[in-house]
């Protein structure tokens, strides 16, 4: 079966790389699912979570990550997800994100609230 080679990179590190059968990401014009053989694509990502269905060497499973802005680019079955900040769901500190959410709500900081919300949702999606 054809596979995608996925690279999820943040500005200062490589977050995840491996084989996948499907990647779902949220672009500015809506959710997009990329499977092997997709047309070459370059899109702008929203702050949101990314779901990667892993396969091959990486084993069957799902990797969920929270990204805050970035890009998705796909060609030749190579998919790269670029984000200034990207966190895998199991790296996210739930308590800290919850605290951040509380704080953002009380400060009425919409951007911070959204970030915390995305983190929490990514964690929820992983379980």
């Amino acid at each position, binding site marked *: 079966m054809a596979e995608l080679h996925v690279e999820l990179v943040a500005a200062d590190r490589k977050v995840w790389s491996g084989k996948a059968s499907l990647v779902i990401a949220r672009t500015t*014009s809506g959710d997009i699912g990329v499977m092997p053989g997709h047309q070459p*694509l370059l899109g702008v990502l929203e702050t949101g979570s990314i779901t990667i269905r892993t396969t091959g060497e990486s084993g069957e499973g799902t990797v969920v990550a929270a990204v805050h802005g970035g*890009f998705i*680019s796909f060609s030749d079955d190579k998919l790269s997800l670029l984000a200034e900040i990207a966190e895998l769901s199991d790296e996210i500190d739930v308590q800290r994100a919850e605290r951040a959410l509380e704080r953002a709500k009380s400060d009425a900081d919409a951007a911070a609230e959204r970030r915390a919300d995305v983190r929490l949702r990514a964690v929820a999606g992983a379980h």
Partner: protein
Amino acid sequence: MGAQTRVYKRRIKSVTATKKITKAMEMIAASRIVKAQRRVAASEPYATELTRAVTAVAYGSNTEHWLTTEVERPTRAAVLLVTSDRGLAGGYNSNAIKQAELLTNRLIGEGKEVLHYVVGRKGVAYYGFRDRPVQESWTGFTDSPSYGDAKEVAAPLIEAIKAETAQGGVDELHIVYTEFHSMMTQSAVDQRMLPLTFTKSAEDSAEVLQRGKEILPLYDFEPSADDVLDALLPRYVESRIYNALLQSAASKHAATRRAMKSATDNAEELIKSLTRLANAARQADITQEISEIVGGASALADASAGSDR
């Protein structure tokens, strides 16, 4: 102990103390280079993928975008100079500043007005001392810059290039930093960040040419090529600045290590020659004492021999 010997001993002691300090600084810098190098390497995937994407859009779309097209008659250019906060790094800062001056003169020669943006206390001090206007400056993070710092530096530059030239905007964006080749070689370089050039400095053009050879796929842009470019290019500028900051930090540590190593070597040399001088002085003291004793003894002998007669 003779006065001379005491002077030498004192100097040896002070040089030894200095040597200890420079040795410690050398070790600290050496350990920091490794860390800085690792950070440069860690930032590489993002930069490479981003360059790839930018190249793809710039080549793969035929949209005219203000960030990729050259202005017919550029009148103003921004120069971002990356220096360090601290000295004691040999020629590191002065080389970067010299490179920036060369670039400034070249740009002025081409009839452009140059706006200065400076990172690092040393660069700020250079312009401050000469009373030359600096648009904006940043200090305090040059030893270990974070991506947030790069964003902070990039923001006003992106702002400036977005603005119309008539309203104080700039047409070109240059960056001067110190490229890290290896532990032993670092060189100050200047690069034009915007408008994009795909045939500029050595490393960059090589990379892009390589990419140029493989046929770039026809991308489907989401939502549109223009929007993607709009979102992509600021990130590209940030990532380039981030890379420049990291490389400069690594270069600074390498330069410090080298400067401190030669300082330590010089101190050792100095201690060696001072020890020789001190030994000679001590020997001279002893010789003098002996000859005084011998002289005194023979004078006594002479005197007593005279009284016998």
